């Protein structure tokens, strides 16, 4: 099981250039892990990994289920671990993006992604220390019930943009967007 000595994730959702990412990384406070998002102009893991190498501290990859089938999700998790990311944050992704006309693919939901990732860790396809977190919501009963389920199933953390899930404080990472200075 992975562990992260932080309660915050500095989130870079939309990365448009290597220079922008490096500048953002320099502004991130201590004891804050970085989270690189798949949105934006730069998204393939290999390129995001080049950005990761320019940054200090632990870096997680936000992995979207959107527009990936389960085969690509599996390879993305393994690739991110092989590249040296400290973990992944499993998210669903914004439904409509680009010109909005592409067929959205949601082969797996976040619960199914979690089971896939945990299975990879169990079979040692990814290191045991590789962090598996799930982006969650709060403030309503079904979202909080699902968040508890993620943790009970074996997720290391849930990650929230705001609010809290009562009783899961020690398992919660707060997502704090960072922007260019």
């Amino acid at each position, binding site marked *: 099981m992975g562990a992260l000595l932080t309660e915050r994730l500095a989130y870079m959702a939309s990365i448009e250039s290597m220079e922008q990412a490096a500048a953002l990384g320099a502004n991130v406070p201590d004891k804050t892990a970085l989270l690189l998002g798949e949105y934006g102009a730069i998204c393939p893991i290999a390129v995001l990994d080049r950005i990761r190498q320019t940054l200090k501290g632990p870096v997680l990859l936000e992995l979207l289920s*959107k527009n990936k089938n*389960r085969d690509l999700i599996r390879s993305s998790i393994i690739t991110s671990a092989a590249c040296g990311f400290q973990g992944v944050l499993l*998210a*669903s992704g*914004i*439904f*409509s993006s680009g010109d909005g006309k592409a067929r*959205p693919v*949601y*082969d*797996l*939901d*976040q*619960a*199914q992604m979690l*089971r896939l990732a945990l299975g990879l860790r169990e079979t040692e396809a990814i290191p045991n220390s590789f962090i598996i977190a*799930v*982006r*969650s*919501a709060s*403030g*309503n*009963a*079904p*979202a909080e*019930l*699902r968040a508890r*389920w993620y943790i009970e199933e074996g997720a290391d953390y849930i990650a929230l943009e705001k609010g809290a899930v009562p009783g899961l404080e020690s398992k919660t990472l707060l997502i704090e967007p960072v922007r260019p200075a």
Partner: protein
Amino acid sequence: MIVTRKKDVETVKKHASKARKVIIVGCSECAAICRTGGSEQVREMAEAFSDREVLATISIESPCDKRISTRDFKRIEEELADADALIALTCGSGAQAISEVTGKRVVAALDTDFVGMVERLGRFYERCSHCGECILNETALLCPVTLCPKGVRNGPCDGIKGTACEVYEDRECVWHAIHSRLTERGELEAFTVYHAPVDWSECHSPKEAVWERS
């Protein structure tokens, strides 16, 4: 019921540009209810083709049923033999069945949208995506595969906004509705029953249902 939309008439006529003699074929079942292929729409299409020779118009009860189409086309055998093309105001299955039954060039005049639930005329709602792995009995008879834009089988997703769907903010998240309904029924334990991903190896197109002879 199969919900259809009319194609633009000029587009239909363009696809039938080489046909001088045509037959207009309507559907007196689904397309009639949708007012895309009923007798009125058949008449309108015949008028739109007034610059050609309309040999016949016909409304078939279920044009997607090859047995019924075969039977009904016998009523216009002579016109059929003479026709250059058939204009099908039917769903895609109907148009293809007509093509196979008649061996004629068929122009599809409708776009097929979805399998719909009819609330009343003009109010059709998609409630089933025919995924082949129904979980309605665990989701209080609300289909998340259809009612969630992301098709989430274990929800809600991370985008839920209060009680609303992330994609359609004026609609309740279906997983919020499922939670409410299961709570009312005292069946909340069903909420976190894990639903495995759909096994697409069993869902390749084209699907078939062929009864074995006993």
